[in-house]
């Protein structure tokens, strides 16, 4: 959101970047905390430092989110889940995005945003229903204000735009937080979503979690853009880029982006630079496409230790709090483990439910066929 990107990188905080005025993101990611947790001001401009309460909440949610993510990966390796796409390392993005929302706001997540949904208050067992294998989306989207986790890349972004526009037309102050990864910014629907959002001035925040890889393909093979944040400019959308492993910066930028959208000033595109520490899924072998030293580099930029260091230094948290959060995270994981270990009862007849509100005669015929097959099998036992 600077006005002159050709000038050398400013060494001081620019003060002429009001959020709504310019569309261009900062030349380098906005950063509030460096890798050691020291307070810095890299293009922090007029972003407000998040409150200590929000930062402590973010710390707690990141610890629980990571523990959940590790637990889910373990369940996948044990065969309890068909697959799990982990997001360890992306906690600041996933937690920050949810904590920036208010009651009544909606999330439009991808399959990798499970930690965000834990923070959004969803039951972890319901989040894991798809890979658990007995049903599709396990939660009631309306009850938890979350669209089904989306697999076809970027397609849910247009839904978020239509939904947010519809909410605005209904006079409701809802903001939609739309998630997308770096690879999916190459999809046509990403561009159509940004364009529609701009044209209809929809209250949507697009959060691009740039975790460097689309399965195995690095960002350099995905785009020639200087930053994915620049992709908003052509659509007239206010854009920003942020250090996605700096929870304070993510919150500062997204707090403002959500307020911007809610106030009727239109959509915002935010690129968060982060890193997927694990593979694409538990079935992936990332050693085939990246060096372990790269992973080590990113481990040093860990979002949780960074925020913890600052919060401790400021006296907002202490050993006792850290221990209690760790304990809470363990209990959370144990609960997930216990409840996911129960074999699910499946209802074969549910195959025919909810294809239509009223099944067609042909579906009723097929239902009767499957029913008789099951009866025959039971009788032969």
């Amino acid at each position, binding site marked *: 959101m600077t006005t002159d990107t050709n000038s050398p990188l400013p060494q001081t905080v620019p003060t002429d970047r009001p959020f709504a005025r310019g569309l261009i993101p900062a030349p380098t990611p906005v950063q509030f905390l460096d890798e050691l947790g020291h307070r810095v001001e890299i293009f922090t401009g007029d972003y407000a430092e998040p409150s200590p309460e929000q930062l402590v909440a973010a710390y707690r949610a990141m610890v629980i989110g990571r523990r959940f993510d590790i637990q889910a990966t373990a369940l996948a390796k044990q065969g309890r889940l068909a697959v799990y796409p982990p997001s360890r390392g992306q906690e600041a993005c996933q937690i920050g995005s949810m904590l920036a929302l208010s009651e009544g706001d909606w999330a439009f997540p991808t399959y990798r945003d499970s930690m965000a949904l834990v923070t959004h208050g969803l039951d972890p067992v319901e989040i894991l229903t798809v890979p658990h294998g007995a049903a599709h989306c396990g939660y009631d989207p309306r009850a938890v204000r979350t669209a*089904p986790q989306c697999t076809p890349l970027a397609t849910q972004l247009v839904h978020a735009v*239509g939904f947010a*526009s*519809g909410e605005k037309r209904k006079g409701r102050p809802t903001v939609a937080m739309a998630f997308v990864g770096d690879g999916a910014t190459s999809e046509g629907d990403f561009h159509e979503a940004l364009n529609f959002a701009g044209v209809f001035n929809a209250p949507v925040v697009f959060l691009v979690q740039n975790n460097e890889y689309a399965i195995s393909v690095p960002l350099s093979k995905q785009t020639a853009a200087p930053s994915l944040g620049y992709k908003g400019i052509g659509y007239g959308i206010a854009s920003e880029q942020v250090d996605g492993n700096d929870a304070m910066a993510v919150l500062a930028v997204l707090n403002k982006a959500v307020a911007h959208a809610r106030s009727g000033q239109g959509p915002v595109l935010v690129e968060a630079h982060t890193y997927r520490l694990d593979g694409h899924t538990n079935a992936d072998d990332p050693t085939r496409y990246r060096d372990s030293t790269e992973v080590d580099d990113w481990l040093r930029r860990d979002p949780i230790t960074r925020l913890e260091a600052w919060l401790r230094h400021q006296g907002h948290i202490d050993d006792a709090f850290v221990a209690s959060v760790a304990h809470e995270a363990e209990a959370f994981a144990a609960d997930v483990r216990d409840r996911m270990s129960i074999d699910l009862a499946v209802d074969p007849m549910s195959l025919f439910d909810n*294809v*239509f509100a009223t099944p067609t005669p042909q579906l009723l015929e097929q239902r009767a066929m499957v029913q008789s097959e099951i009866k025959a099998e039971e009788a032969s036992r």
Partner: protein
Amino acid sequence: MTPTVTHHGAPARNQVTMSGAINRALRDAMTANTDVVVFGEDVGTLGGVFRITDGIARDFGEDRCFDTPLAEAGIVGFAVGMAMAGFRPVIEMQFDAFAYPAFEQIASHVAKMRNRTAGKVNLPIVIRIPFAGGIGGVEHHCDSSEAYYAHTPGLKVVTPATVEDAYTLLREAINDPDPVIFMEPKRLYWSKGAIESATAATTFDSFGRAAVRRAGTDVTLVAYGPSVDVAMAAAAAAADSGWSVEVVDLRTIVPFDDVTVVASVRKTGRCVVVQEAQGFAGVGAEIAARVQERAFHSLQAPVLRVAGLDIPYPPPKLEHLHLPGVERVLDAIARLQWDDQADTRFLDHHGKGGAM
């Protein structure tokens, strides 16, 4: 079209074109339910390239009928979101082939949302698609794309053949809690008929009920959309040759009315399916299979199909050879083994004798 002046909710009967009937249905549905919104390319100020939405933006306001950016996946995806927010979007794909960019949104989201969410989120969306040819259109403007949608579980696929049906089927589609692909035969836009319109929240019940358009005893012609008129003309011509031909108009491809089709074939003993779309792996193939599965012992001859050729839609000056016409239908009727001889004239082009 001139808007019909009615007392609120009172039915009015008038003579209109099919495009006028669709316009009337949109207006009446929008009056009956304020959640009904219309959007798409050029549907606002212009009233659509076929003028189907003529005057609606002016009369109902830009909030309820509006132009969108030119991006079909965006239009359909936007409709998904609008439906989730409580609206009932009726969206227009400008031409059949221009809907293909939206196919992922239709197949992966529109068709599956109810199922994916265990019924928690339904999408009452109507996707209007002017389709098929016969109007001298150039390439990419005359595709018969109904089979793609009919093959996708979760979609209802509707195509009117009469002006009256254009009105009532669209009203029913807009009332439906599930997504409907509403396929409008372009060449029938200017056909005329009478409709009874009503702005009240009326219920309709034609989905899944085929209509017998002409009663007969010797042959059943099964058709839908643009091919019903062809079947009717063929039936009239066949009467001159002494054949009594029954014509069944499916009205809805999904849900499919096995009962009416099979009852007719059981009565006549012979069946020809007429469709304008290319024949291979098409809706007509499905109908032929279903008829033979259910009425084999009533059949005096194999079920024949009269379909478009298996070619990309041809240039305007050649479309008459592609489109199933009365002569081709009559020819098929003549081949229904009236003399108990199999007709293999067109079935042995591989030179292998038994290859058919």
